[in-house]
């Protein structure tokens, strides 16, 4: 399937019902990192990624996702047990389709386990979110490529 120039309506990631959400620091850059990773990779593949317009029908492929968990982990645990505990994890799931036809679903998980001195939790979670965004894009593109 040739994706070059095809419109794609991407909804902002929803935090509704998320199992774990970070407390104590700003979540906006984390959500932006996820969306940024996703948009960059979809755009690289040639899709014309658009924001949804209120009241207007979605254009082309529409993608909706929600956060499963955004866990900043623990810096101390990462420092002590780098590969076993304290990892920063960003997990998202969602569906994509065209019009009323469901084309597929995705489940992406970005994990960061190691950083200097355990690593700053917000930065680790932001990186994990970006990885999850890239993983989401690759799953969507792989599914679209088979159609």
């Amino acid at each position: 399937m040739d994706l070059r120039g095809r419109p794609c309506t991407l909804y902002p990631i929803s935090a509704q019902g998320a199992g774990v959400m970070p407390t104590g620091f700003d979540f906006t850059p984390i959500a932006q990192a996820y969306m940024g990773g996703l948009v960059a990779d979809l755009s690289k593949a040639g899709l014309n990624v658009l924001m949804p317009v209120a009241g207007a029908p979605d254009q082309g492929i529409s993608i909706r996702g929600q956060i499963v968990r955004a866990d900043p982990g623990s810096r101390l645990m990462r420092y002590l047990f780098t590969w076993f505990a304290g990892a920063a994890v960003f997990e998202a799931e969602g569906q994509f389709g065209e019009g009323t036809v469901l084309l597929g679903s995705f489940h992406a998980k970005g994990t960061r386990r190691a950083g200097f001195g355990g690593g700053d939790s917000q930065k680790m979670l932001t990186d994990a979110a970006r990885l999850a965004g890239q993983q989401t894009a690759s799953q969507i593109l792989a599914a679209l490529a088979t159609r």
Partner: protein
Amino acid sequence: MNGMPPGYPPPGPQYGAGFYPQVRSRLQWQAYVRARFEAGQSVVQMLAEMAASGVSRPDAEGLVVEVIGAMRRRAVTIIAVGCIAVLVGLAVTVITMQAATDAAASSGSGMYVVWWGPVVFGAIGAIYGLRVYLKIPSPNR
């Protein structure tokens, strides 16, 4: 009278902080249940919370069993890796000490390695894993 105007149904369950009915996907519930168990919530409290959110009893029980199984597997993996690290550290230390003793007996000097890193960090890891395992609630309580 229960304080409600006539014709109203009796009041539903009262929700305190962090106990609101939630519409969640299965994956979101798994993540939530795991986080709550790690925070020390009991299975009974979790099942009550899921029931209040409209999750059927069989679904809730299945999910709890699934999450507890995953938590146990993770804890056992941490314990196993920690124990292996301790054993490898001790084996290297003992083997090189034995070789050094033999060398000292034949040539007058020998060198050995005290590989304390895997022993100490492996032991800490195993203790951590054991602590994680002991905190996991039983599905029957």
